[in-house]
């Protein structure tokens, strides 16, 4: 652990955090080597292997330990947060952190390897990086709706069977946010493309969903599938919705 200089601390004022409360950096140490690591609270540098969440340390302990070292940081480069974590999918990013760590660890190890070992480490890194980028709702942790949040569901079928007789939803039903729908969907074909639907038929029937606040759901991004690019926001109503929460459908043009 290394304490930053006042100038280094000040330089982080304008740098975005990697996650709440810490920056991720690549630092050149006065001892001559370079290390990946984290800067907690803009003040204390930890090497990557010194995972703070595995330590039973308080803030004073961090400061005390950092004061014992004679090594300082010559300079550091802040590693930006992944773009996919910056658009309201915070929970997914956290759940994928393990794969980011594995990918980066394999890539770093490959730098010091050669021959077949290097090739294998690079291949592993790619596999982990791919897993880290998966942001589908089905892989996301369960979160809750906000007060007044509205969702839309697109279907080729006006008699959508996921909508119950009492105008609720059965468990495990997909939808999207009103914001995503309003911004991107003007026709039934638009919905097929953005939500990667396997149907040939345009999803031109639009249901509006108004759940109560704190309803369980998973949020994510539609992965490319069914020869469609996806990319829309998808949510899953994990335990369904009670009667009276769904209206529609209204019909939008097919094309």
């Amino acid at each position, binding site marked *: 652990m290394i304490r930053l200089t006042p100038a280094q601390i000040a330089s982080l004022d304008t740098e975005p955090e990697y996650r709440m409360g810490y920056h991720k950096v690549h630092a050149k140490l006065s001892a001559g080597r370079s290390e990946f690591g984290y800067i907690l609270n803009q003040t204390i540098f930890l090497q990557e292997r010194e995972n703070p969440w595995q330590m039973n340390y308080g803030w004073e302990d961090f400061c005390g330990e950092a004061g014992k070292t004679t090594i300082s940081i010559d300079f550091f480069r802040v590693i930006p947060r992944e773009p996919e974590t910056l658009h309201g999918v915070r929970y997914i990013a956290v759940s994928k952190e393990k794969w980011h760590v594995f990918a980066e660890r394999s890539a770093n190890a490959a730098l010091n390897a050669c021959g077949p070992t290097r090739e294998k480490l690079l291949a592993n890194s790619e596999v982990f990086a791919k897993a880290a980028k998966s942001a589908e709702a089905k892989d996301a942790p369960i979160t809750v709706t906000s007060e007044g949040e509205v969702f839309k569901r*697109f279907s080729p079928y006006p*008699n*959508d069977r*996921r909508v119950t007789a009492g105008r609720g939803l059965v468990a495990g*039903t997909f939808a*999207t946010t009103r914001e995503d729908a309003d911004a991107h969907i003007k026709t039934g074909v638009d919905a097929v493309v953005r939500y990667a639907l*396997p*149907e040939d038929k345009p999803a031109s029937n639009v249901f509006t969903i108004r759940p109560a606040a704190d309803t369980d759901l998973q949020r994510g991004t539609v992965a490319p599938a069914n020869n469609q690019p996806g990319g829309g926001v*998808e949510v899953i109503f994990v335990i369904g919705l009670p009667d009276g929460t769904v209206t529609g459908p209204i019909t939008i043009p097919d094309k």
Partner: protein
Amino acid sequence: MTTIRLPAIWIDRLVHLPESGMGYQRVNIRLQRGKVLKNVMVFNAEECQVLEPFEPSEIEDVELVR
């Protein structure tokens, strides 16, 4: 591709299983003669598209692909 409408018993079963995406489920269909049709898309819990047609009454089980 042939579109086959599922019998009511399977519609009722699928409606109570989670979706694989908006409006569809990916399932394995086991037929009475032992054949299993894998990764079949079912739309609105009622219509499936298959390469090899079969009689709906032949269905012995439908299981969601996780």
